[in-house]
């Protein structure tokens, strides 16, 4: 089930059906959640937190996952498999008023990280041939461009709210750790986690970076 947890670890479960929720993403205004429900055929849903309702966003037999919001909160973008696409990125209006619009199709397994503030580009991880690296996808020309490539695996990209810094996970030390690097032109890398770190997420004001880990 989904729950809000405060800084002391106190859990306040949401009044929603008990399902295997995954990849929850709060909308920009914070009143909706795009989420992946595993046992529903790996489909994506939108939850209205005020009304406690779920709306199915995808219904294809293929896998749908990693839903994220566009900065204006109007669209949900997600990755999928389809009968005619080994892997694809689609977007659909969050209120269900549009059909799926294809943004990209290819062979790599992709997980979405987030949008630039202007909504023109999204960052993602591409996993292919036992390697994982980061890339950007331009919504305008629908071109996928490699971002940070080396021999180490990089996943879980998270762009700062101002779009100038990219947090991600790299296994360059032999264990997963969180790093921050300038965006879009990578410069120096700043390791954040001392031991093991995963799943970086920025606060909305960009002043804090959270991650799951074993430091401290």
């Amino acid at each position, binding site marked *: 089930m989904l729950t809000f947890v405060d800084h002391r670890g106190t859990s306040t479960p949401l009044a929603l059906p008990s399902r295997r929720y995954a990849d929850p993403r709060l909308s920009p205004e914070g009143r909706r959640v795009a989420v992946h429900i595993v046992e529903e055929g790996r489909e994506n849903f939108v939850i209205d937190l005020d009304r406690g309702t779920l709306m199915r966003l995808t219904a294809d037999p293929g896998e749908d996952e990693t839903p994220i919001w566009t900065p204006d909160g109007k669209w949900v973008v997600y990755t999928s498999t389809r009968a005619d696409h080994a892997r694809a990125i689609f977007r659909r209006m969050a209120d269900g008023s549009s059909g799926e619009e294809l943004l990209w199709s290819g062979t790599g397994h992709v997980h979405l990280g987030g949008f630039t503030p202007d909504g023109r580009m999204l960052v993602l991880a591409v996993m292919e041939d036992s390697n994982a690296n980061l890339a950007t996808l331009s919504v305008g020309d629908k071109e996928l461009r490699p971002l940070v490539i080396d021999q180490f695996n990089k996943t879980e990209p998270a762009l700062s709210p101002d779009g100038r810094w990219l947090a991600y996970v790299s296994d360059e030390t032999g264990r997963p750790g969180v790093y921050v690097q300038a965006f879009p032109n990578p410069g120096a890398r700043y390791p954040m986690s001392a031991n093991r770190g995963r799943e970086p997420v920025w606060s909305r004001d960009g002043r804090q970076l*959270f991650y799951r*880990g*074993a430091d401290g």
Partner: protein
Amino acid sequence: MTVTVTAGDSFTASVPSPLFEDRFLSTMGDTHTTYDVARDGAHFLMVERAGGSVDAPRHVDIVLGMVKSR
């Protein structure tokens, strides 16, 4: 864990500090981000097993830092 950051020409970050014992689920395993931060920065949307049973505890760390403008 949490780190405080400041952005600018360079990036500075505080020492990571633990927030709370992470007894919540990483439903999809590695390479997925399975929680989100609320607008107030004080609450986290997480996945918990129904009935309150939990995974092996870890920590959610926050890094607070500074990024100077470039």
